[in-house]
């Protein structure tokens, strides 16, 4: 409970720092998309991703699975690839993800981000309901 609050504060702090210091929206899909489109363009996305991945690797070394639980349940690599492609397609179609729309967009009162966030949270809950309850066992 407290760790969730502290974690949320840190994510908010990160987004505030990115915006106030560099006028960048701290969205993970946006950073990745920006970096992949122009690796030698603005230095911000690349360094943001380096900080994100580097810190995660460090935390994993220091505290193991308690910090970076990489468990993906019983999903096979094939399903993860399909899921990853869908996430990539959706975030580019809607110009953002949980961080770009959900954290940054909603915080600054963007109507587009609010619509996007409500949409993906509703669909995510629906998919969880379908795969866990309505059609439990149908998805390998």
């Amino acid at each position: 409970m407290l760790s969730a609050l502290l974690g949320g504060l840190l994510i908010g702090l990160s987004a505030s720092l990115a915006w106030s210091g560099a006028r960048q929206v701290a969205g993970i899909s946006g950073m990745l998309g920006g970096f992949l489109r122009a690796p030698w363009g603005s230095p911000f996305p690349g360094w943001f991703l380096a900080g994100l991945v580097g810190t995660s690797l460090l935390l994993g070394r220091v505290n193991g699975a308690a910090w970076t639980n990489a468990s993906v349940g019983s999903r096979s690599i094939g399903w993860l690839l399909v899921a990853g492609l869908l996430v990539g397609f959706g975030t580019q179609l809607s110009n953002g993800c949980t961080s770009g729309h959900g954290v940054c967009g909603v915080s600054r009162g963007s109507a587009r981000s609010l619509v996007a966030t409500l949409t993906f949270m509703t669909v995510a809950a629906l998919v969880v309901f379908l795969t866990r309850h309505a059609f439990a066992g149908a998805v390998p």
Partner: protein
Amino acid sequence: MSQRWFGLASGALFALGLALSGMTDPGKVLAFLDVGGA
């Protein structure tokens, strides 16, 4: 130059926040999204 440091720092803070809040654990995220109960 400052773009690099702001990028590195905000990326690191984001990772700390995700890890601390438990959002790096897919099970926790799925449990949150599971409105139908456990």
